[in-house]
């Protein structure tokens, strides 16, 4: 009987307080919609940044004069070097074949194979790429760098702008993290704020209830249930809009692309679950807590 009473109370209250109820719902909807839009964006951005970072390689070019024994020695050496993650050996013949396949026209112009044997070293962590390069070719006292093995011709980053990639991706990651944090706290704040306000509009009502002999929890339960329902409705609205957006916009115009460029996005089902749970939890808690002030009669 108790639960059904509280439920009926919550429904009555929503019906009779259309304005604040609607306002609370709209706030949940809007903030959850924002969250639902930003979470995949943030994830995709971070994913993209990470996959760019994964491409940071250190290429160790051997001298064209290197013999197989030299190659083996260098390989052993590299295996012992700290920060070396994956190690891939590309023989000069393999490199030539690969390049010729990629740029047939261009390589037609070349005569003999100009490419050396190469080790492609993936650092254990992209941030260590520069340290690794320095370890393999430490700066010489005379200036310039001297590779640690005489068979090594050059140690290079795949792209000359590794440094730039690293800082930019780092920045992107920090920025998105900050934005996500700001957005989440903003959502919580905004929802709590709205609920506080709609409680405030019913301050008098709560006072009267107390004077008539209602206990704190007797007053609180309907409000918490109301908050839960409103939060669920708002979150549901957000989910429906997100779903519509996905079907109408994402799947239609970016068909096939999203899966390519944003493989790290959370699945849609999980996103929905997050949005729903977030909306409901924040609203329910907010209602329960905001009420405390007005219960002190």
């Amino acid at each position, binding site marked *: 009987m108790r639960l059904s009473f509280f439920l009926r109370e919550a429904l009555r209250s929503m019906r009779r307080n259309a304005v604040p109820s609607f306002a609370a719902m709209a706030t949940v909807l809007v903030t959850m919609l924002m969250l639902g839009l930003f979470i995949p964006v943030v994830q995709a951005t971070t994913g993209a940044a990470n996959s760019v970072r994964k491409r940071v390689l250190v290429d160790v070019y051997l001298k064209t004069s290197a013999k197989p024994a030299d190659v083996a020695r260098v390989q052993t050496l590299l295996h012992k070097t700290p920060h070396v993650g994956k190690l891939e050996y590309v023989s000069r013949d393999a490199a030539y074949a690969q390049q010729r396949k990629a740029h047939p026209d261009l390589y037609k112009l070349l005569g003999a194979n100009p490419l050396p044997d190469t080790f492609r070293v993936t650092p254990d962590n992209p941030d260590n790429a520069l340290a690794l390069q320095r370890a393999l070719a430490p700066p010489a006292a005379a200036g310039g760098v001297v590779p640690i093995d005489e068979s090594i011709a050059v140690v290079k980053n795949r792209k000359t702008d590794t440094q730039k990639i690293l800082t930019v991706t780092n920045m992107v990651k920090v920025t998105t993290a900050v934005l996500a944090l700001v957005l989440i706290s903003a959502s919580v704040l905004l929802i709590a704020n709205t609920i506080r306000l709609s409680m405030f509009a019913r301050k008098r009502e709560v006072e009267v209830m107390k*004077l008539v002999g209602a*206990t*704190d929890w007797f007053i609180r339960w309907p409000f918490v249930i109301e908050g839960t329902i409103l939060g669920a409705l708002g979150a549901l609205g957000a989910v429906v809009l997100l779903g519509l957006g996905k079907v109408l916009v994402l799947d239609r115009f970016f068909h096939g692309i999203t899966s390519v460029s944003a493989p790290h996005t959370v699945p849609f089902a999980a996103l929905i679950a997050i949005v729903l749970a977030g909306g409901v939890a924040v609203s329910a808690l907010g209602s329960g807590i905001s009420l405390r002030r007005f219960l002190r009669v």
Partner: protein
Amino acid sequence: MPPSSAKAVIEFRGVSKRYGVGAVGLDQATFAVDRGEFVFLVGATGSGKSTLMRLLIKELEPDAGMIRVAGHDLAEIVRNRVPYYRRNLGVVFQDFKLLPNRTVHDNVAYALQVTGRTRREIRDKVPDILRLTGLSTKLHNFPDELSGGEQQRVSIARAFVNHPPLLLADEPTGNLDPETSIGIMQLLYRINRTGTTVLVATHDQTMVDKMRRRVIELREGRVVRDEATGLYTRDESTREFALRLRNDAPQAPEHL
């Protein structure tokens, strides 16, 4: 100070309440009300009648003195026991204090719901008390759809519905016409006859004169008069009582 009598339901001992600077709510009020008494609280506006009521329901805390209700010191009731204490009181508030989002029926039912009564009990009791207070046709109206007097009667119905052992009524007939006022007073009298202690704050001098019950008068927060006016007839029937009230002029003792 005389020792508190055991059968006192309400006991004030040197109770003072001051609001900020200057405004005196109560000033050294001392009196006791016995179980089953019917007491009028009179006094000019601002003399502290509502303050006394608000102290009794623990809406306010006194600055000094002690208030005992049914033997319990109010100061010793902890915060989360207050609701349970309040359920023993029926209170008619001067400004009604109805719940704006509930119909007349639900406003009265709320007083039963807080104590966890079943729906069956509510279905039994609420329409009864609403009939008694003449609100049967307004069951599904919201408070802002009622006239002043109707709102006041809802407040009265809510206070009565629980059959509380102590009934406080702050100006219960301020917005009622003489005929309805007599009806309400008759109801109060009937409730009093079942053993309920009743404390009524009122300005209706005619009513006080005719009822011939104990009167406590406040002036600027002090108790300046406390007397049973003449002929205190406990065994009068409700009908005789009503007849006497309707008699226009305050007359000499009649059929006693």
